[in-house]
C-alpha cells in the first residue's frame, strides 16, 4: 500500500532543495500541476460525499458548488500548466471557467427558487421527506 501511494508524495514534494522542510517551502512557493490536481480531486470528493450523505437540501447545493469549483480549479491549473509550457491557447481554460461560474450562478438561482417553492408547499427541506418523484 505504501509502495502504491509513495510516488504521489514524491511528486508532491519533488523539485528543488534538499531537506524536507526546505522542500515543502519550495513546493508551497512553486506549486506545479500535480498539487492543483490533487486539491481539485479532494474538493470533488468532499463535494460528492456532501451530496450523497447530507439531508439538508441547502447543504447539498453548497456541495454541488464545491464540485463545480473543483472542475474550475482543474481548468485553471491546466491553463497555467499550458501557459508555462508556452501553449498559445492556454487562456481557453480561464474562459471556460468564466462560463462554468455563469452556469453555476444560474443553477443556484433556480435551485434556491425551487427550494423556496418546496418549503412553502411541503414545509420541509430534508431531502428524504421530499419523495414526490419517487416511484
Amino acid at each position, binding site marked *: 500500500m505504501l509502495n502504491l501511494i509513495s510516488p504521489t508524495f514524491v511528486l508532491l514534494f519533488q523539485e528543488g532543495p534538499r531537506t524536507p522542510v526546505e522542500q515543502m517551502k519550495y513546493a508551497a512557493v512553486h506549486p506545479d500541476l500535480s498539487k492543483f490536481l490533487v486539491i481539485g480531486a479532494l474538493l470533488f470528493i468532499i463535494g460528492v460525499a456532501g451530496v450523497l450523505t447530507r439531508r439538508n437540501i441547502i447543504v447539498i447545493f453548497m456541495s454541488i458548488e464545491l464540485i463545480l469549483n473543483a472542475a474550475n480549479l482543474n481548468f485553471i491549473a491546466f491553463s497555467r500548466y499550458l501557459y508555462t509550457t508556452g501553449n498559445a491557447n492556454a487562456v481557453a481554460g480561464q474562459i471556460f471557467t468564466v462560463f462554468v461560474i455563469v452556469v453555476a450562478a444560474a443553477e443556484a*438561482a433556480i435551485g434556491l427558487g425551487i427550494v423556496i417553492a418546496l418549503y412553502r408547499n411541503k414545509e420541509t427541506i430534508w431531502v428524504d421527506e421530499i419523495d414526490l418523484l419517487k416511484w
Partner: protein
Amino acid sequence: MVLFLFVIMLVNVGAEERGRDEIFNNQRQVTASLIFCLLLVAGVLYAVNKGYGGLQARNKIPPDVASAQETVRDQSLPKSATGSSSITKDSETLAASLYRFASLPFEIASVLLLVAIIGSVMLARTLRQEASADDVDPEVLQVEMARDPDLAKLEPQSD
C-alpha cells in the same frame, strides 16, 4: 454565496443547528457514498502515479526552469502605483479572447442568466403576489380565500 445566505434566512435551518434532527441520510446511503469516495480516491492516486510522469516527460522545459523564467518575467513587469503588485497583460489577454473567440457563448450565457433571473422570481412569488396578478387557479383561490379572507381584496376586479 449571497443567494445562499438569503435562502438560509428564508428557510428554517435552525433545527439543524440545535441538533434535534439527523443531519445525515440513512446508514445505507452513507455507506454507499463512502465506498464511492474511496473508489474516487483510489482513482486519483492511480491516475497521478500512472500518468503524471508521462505528462512531465512531455515538457520541453523542466518545471524548475519554467518557474525560474516565470519569476524573471514577473520581475520585469512594470510596478503598479502602490508598488505592492505588478501590472500584467493577463486580464487583457483573457478579455480580448473572451470577446474574440467566445463571443457567441458569451451572449448565450447572458440569455441563460436572464432566463434564470426570471425563473427564480417566478418560483419565489408568494400566493398574495400571484393573486394580485390574477395568476391563481380559481378553485385553488376559493380554498385559499376560505383560509385567508384578505386574499379577496387583492384580486383585481373583473368587469
